[in-house]
């Protein structure tokens, strides 16, 4: 494998890790507040469709992004209603949201565009284009650093940079801000937050809304940046991989970055090489596909450090009598 190939694989890693990272951070906000969310997949899918549809109709990718975020937030609202207001089962709500998105996107796409559940291909301003960072061209010929800067760091869409910037931002919010303190508290001991005079319901709804926004960006990235338009089931399990990454990272932002980059790398390798030869032994592509899930099971089994979710996670808050 030469240097250029390595760069290509890494470049593709960054692209593939971006939606995972956004969705993973989305899940982080929600689950840190005590609301489990297996509906990341559905929210991303919903956002992917609406961003592509609106971008296709208006020709503006920015309007598309907004539509994506709004649609994802609508689903987040249902999840909040079910799991916070009506104290329903958060897992069941998540499952329902995934199916709702899977079904509605195709039904609406078919009715709207009549292209077998797709949106038209996005062109020009209806898609996020690559940004060339300053001096990328001039530095291109500097050995080692030049190609890294030009090929790997520069040339992504704005959403990629947004996603990566979200990591330190999330860290700061979580550990250095009032909101973060309350967020962490509400996921671990909602009764402490309640008696401290802070509304548990408002905190959790806020967290779920942030989750909606980030899933919306993730979905919009899929349909308007990574690819040019929506196709049926285009999230292809990314929401679940993000969930796996969230557990893998033990609900912490910097670890989330590492986990999603790792899973992105696995996807990039699987995409580029079908079967990998390892000293006479052929590693089939299916193993690469399954590896994120297998790794997560190993983590969950507690063999590589224990993943302890927020203590109040998954259970609705009820004042005790």
């Amino acid at each position, binding site marked *: 494998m030469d240097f250029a190939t390595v760069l290509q694989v890494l470049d593709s890693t960054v692209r593939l890790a971006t939606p995972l990272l956004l969705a993973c951070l989305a899940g982080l906000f929600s689950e840190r507040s005590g609301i489990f969310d*297996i509906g990341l997949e559905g929210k991303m899918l919903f956002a992917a469709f609406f961003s592509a549809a609106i971008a296709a109709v208006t020709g503006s990718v920015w309007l598309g992004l907004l539509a994506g975020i709004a649609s994802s937030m609508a689903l987040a609202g*249902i999840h909040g*209603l*079910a*799991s916070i207001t*009506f*104290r*329903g*089962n*958060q*897992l*069941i*709500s998540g*499952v*329902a*949201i*995934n*199916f*709702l998105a*899977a*079904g*509605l*996107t*195709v*039904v*609406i796409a*078919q*009715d709207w565009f009549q292209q077998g*559940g797709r949106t038209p291909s996005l062109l020009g301003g209806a898609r996020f284009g690559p940004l060339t960072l300053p001096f990328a061209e001039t530095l291109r010929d500097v050995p080692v650093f030049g190609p890294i800067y030009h090929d790997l760091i520069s040339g992504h869409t704005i959403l990629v940079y947004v996603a990566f910037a979200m990591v330190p931002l999330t860290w700061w919010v979580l550990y250095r801000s009032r909101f973060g303190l309350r967020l962490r508290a509400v996921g671990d001991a909602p009764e402490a937050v309640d008696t401290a005079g802070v509304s548990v319901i408002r905190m959790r709804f806020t967290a779920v809304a942030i989750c909606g926004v980030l899933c919306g960006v993730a979905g919009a990235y899929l349909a308007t940046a990574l690819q040019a338009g929506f196709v049926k089931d285009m999230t292809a*399990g990314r929401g*679940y991989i993000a*969930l*796996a990454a969230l*557990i893998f990272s033990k609900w912490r932002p910097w670890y989330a970055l590492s986990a999603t980059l790792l899973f992105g790398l696995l996807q990039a390798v699987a995409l580029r090489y079908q079967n990998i030869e390892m000293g006479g032994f052929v590693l*089939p592509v*299916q*193993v690469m*596909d*399954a590896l994120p*899930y*297998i790794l*997560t*099971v190993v983590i*969950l*089994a*507690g063999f590589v450090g224990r993943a302890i*979710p927020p203590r109040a996670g998954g259970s609705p808050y009820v004042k005790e009598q």
Partner: protein
Amino acid sequence: MDKMPRWADIVLIPVFSLVLAFLLSGLVIVAIGEDPVAAVKLMVTGALGSTYGWGYTLYYATNFLFTGLAFAVANHARLFNIGAEGQATLGGLGVAFVCLAIPWPHWALALPAAIIGGALFGAAWAFLPAWLQAKRGSHIVITTIMFNFIGASLLNYMLVNVMRPTGSMDPATARFPPGAHLPTLHDLLAVFGIPFSKAAPANISFLVAIAACVLVWLLIWRTRLGYEIRAQGHSEPAAVYAGIRPVRIVVLAMLISGALAGCMAVNNVMGEAERLVLNAVEGAGFIGIAVALMGRSHPFGVFLAAILFGFLYQGGAELALWTTIPRELIVVIQALVILFTGALDNMVRMPLEKLFLSMRKGRG
């Protein structure tokens, strides 16, 4: 006193939720410019208006019966087995192994063997998540989701690299030997002189599924194991106090659940496709969740809900054929049913409870 009579809890609330789900689906149909009344008519004639329609309805219902029962059994132990999809996938592998192992002389021999093969593989796929939950506290929802994906990759690998007949480009196994072909409802009813569509895939597995319903009912409400599963599901401390070992119950409940899901392959793989193909389960594992939630985890409720979803599936296919309404509308209905009967249960329940309370107060 309970806030509501029992019948309201087990009949009224699911029906109410269902009505809500249907109303919203009707709105979707209106929104895409079709006539919901006509759509319902089309669905009814398509799914129930002919033995052909019934044949498909019952075929789908059979799948959902198995996965619905699978979810229900685990749910009695408060285990959220979201992995029926993967367990049914693996069940397919087990059934395929059995069917391809020897040139079966007669289906009556192949059927029990296939049931055992499917059940074993399905149970095996549920074992590790169960064990990890029981012994290491790994959340079973997440592990079973992961196992769904791992199972899909495994099937993909097996079909592409191992079980594909040489020379075939299709990622599927060879056709099963004729001795492993199950009698369809057409064949069975012909014995009694009742005409039934020859083309529909409903087969003897439907009877197997009904038998499974009865067995699950006996298991849950008439056996010690069922008693222990329910006790554990309602209160683990009480179960431990009573000398019930949670690890044993978690593992057993999940093995039974996985085995039931695995048995689905007898219907779709052995009974219909007569070979194993990619994505043979087609989401039936997840529909099991909706079916079990609707059916309140009771085998009879599961039976009714499975028939309903069988009807929706066949009716949906007919809709897609004759109107601009795509098949995915059924996925929407399924999602709404799960949402209302599962997650938004309280939204439906609270007003009804208030109603019953005020009625009781009014009486005395």
